[in-house]
């Protein structure tokens, strides 16, 4: 199997997988981070309790998260075509990946921010800090290690989703493993793609863990 053709294919697969995963993760955070912050601020014990908004956001997040990814992938095809012009290939796959992972990211952000001691927030309030200052100067910096660790988890989850999108021609290592390994019974190709995915996950996880612990001032 290690002919130049296959190696070129695998290299392209790695590139496409990284491209999909990283761009989707970034966009998922563009949507998910503010959503997570909004969830924590409007919580009934938050600094700006808003029952209705919090309930509505919570419902949307739960709703999207409970739709299986494969179904969401197919269901949003019209929307994907509208945005990207096609529904196959790695760029097109970014659309369902972002839609599926943004609510997940929002929950991750919410749980990281919840770890920040309520007392520290109270101390900031007692100094006259407003909501924006509390978010930018207290919640986000204090939760940074946890946010980074959770970002690594989110990224690896998105990587897993991207591989799943191989079933509908999403591109990347997932497509290779399905087209060659699954449909053509080339088990060696399947094995190699899976191993490559394992390595990528390990690398992402390790990088996230290192940045998180190195930046954490609580553990020194």
């Amino acid at each position, binding site marked *: 199997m290690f002919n130049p053709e296959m190696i070129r294919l695998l290299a392209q697969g790695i590139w496409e997988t990284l491209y999909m995963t990283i761009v989707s993760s970034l966009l998922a955070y563009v949507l998910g981070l503010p959503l997570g912050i909004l969830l924590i601020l409007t919580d009934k014990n938050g600094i700006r309790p808003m029952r209705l908004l919090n309930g509505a956001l919570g419902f949307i997040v739960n709703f999207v998260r409970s739709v299986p990814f494969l179904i969401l992938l197919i269901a949003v095809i019209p929307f994907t075509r509208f945005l990207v012009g096609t529904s196959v290939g790695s760029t097109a796959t970014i659309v369902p990946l972002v839609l599926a992972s943004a609510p997940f990211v929002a929950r991750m952000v919410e749980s990281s921010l919840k770890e920040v001691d309520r*007392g520290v927030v109270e*101390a*900031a309030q007692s*100094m*006259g800090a407003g909501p924006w200052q509390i978010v930018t*100067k207290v919640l986000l910096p*204090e939760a940074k290690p946890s946010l980074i660790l959770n970002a690594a988890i989110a990224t690896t989850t998105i990587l897993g989703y991207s591989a799943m999108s191989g079933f509908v021609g999403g591109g990347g290592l997932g497509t290779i493993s399905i087209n060659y390994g699954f449909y053509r019974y080339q088990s060696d190709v399947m094995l190699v793609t899976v191993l490559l995915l394992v390595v990528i996950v390990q690398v992402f996880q390790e990088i996230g863990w290192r940045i998180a612990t190195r930046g*954490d001032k609580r553990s*020194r």
Partner: protein
Amino acid sequence: MSNFLSEGAKRMNEIIQIQNLKKTFVSDHNTVTALDGIDLSIEKGEIFGIIGLSGAGKSTLVRCMNYLEKPTAGTVIFDGKELGNMSEKELRKARQSISMIFQGFHLLMQRDALSNVCFPLEIAGVPKKEAKEKAKEMLELVGISDKAQAYPAQLSGGQKQRVAIARALATNPQVLLCDEATSALDPTTTQSILSLLQKINQKLGVTIVIITHEMRVIEAICHRVAILDNSCVAECGMVEEIFVNPRSDIAKRLIYPHGRKKTVFQKRGCLRIVFDGSSSFEPVVSNMVLTCGAAVNILFADTKDIDGKAYGQMLLQLPDDETAKRRIYAYLSSRNLYFKEEVADV
């Protein structure tokens, strides 16, 4: 007329006035009254203590003083302005003059000591360089300028509270609220933090409000005290007066946690101590009473001071308590005094 004037002058000196303050917490299942008609006035420059058992409403009361907790009814007037009438923006501005420190310190864990002290200045919009200078000055004041680069995780409890105090004072507040600020610290550290608060009060003239459940904190540095019980002020006045003559039950319980000590003396027998030239400059009997924590009754004494040396003897009635007696014997032996138990009736 003169009465009216003195009343007016008094008003001028009040930094915080609390009138008929009420706070109830309503949850789905029940309603809890935390404060029920509190009236207090705190004067400029004093150290005011608020003491009570847990659940008496102390923490809620102190949080109403900067409106971290919004009262259900009543008014809080800070420096002549009513907090309840302020817009959110005005309130945030006012809070820069009412600082607060906490039992759990509540420092930012991801910032070092210096930038923790810079934090309230950043909030107030002070330029970075200026803030840093001020922060250094504040760390100097609380005596830990050598720890400026240390993160809270590397500091001891006492050091963390010093950073918190420096942080609270950075914005030049008029009032410092201390919510059980020493309750997480050991007795020695507590003492050093209390001395620091006293120094700040004297040096900077900051009014200090101390919330505590420990009478020794009140005793150590407060000028006036309010005793909180069942959501109400049970007693309020000068610390010395309340210590000497507590009127309310709760005050008595706080001052004598184990009940007023009454010594029962032994019915038969007493102790004869002979002074045969030991130093008369040493108050032996007083020291014995203080060291052993036991009262004695002097039945007879005939001592003379000759050239700084004590001669004579003394008859003491001892408490009817074996441990106390043993301690007294041990103390007298350690002082090299001759003593003897007498069996005679007293």
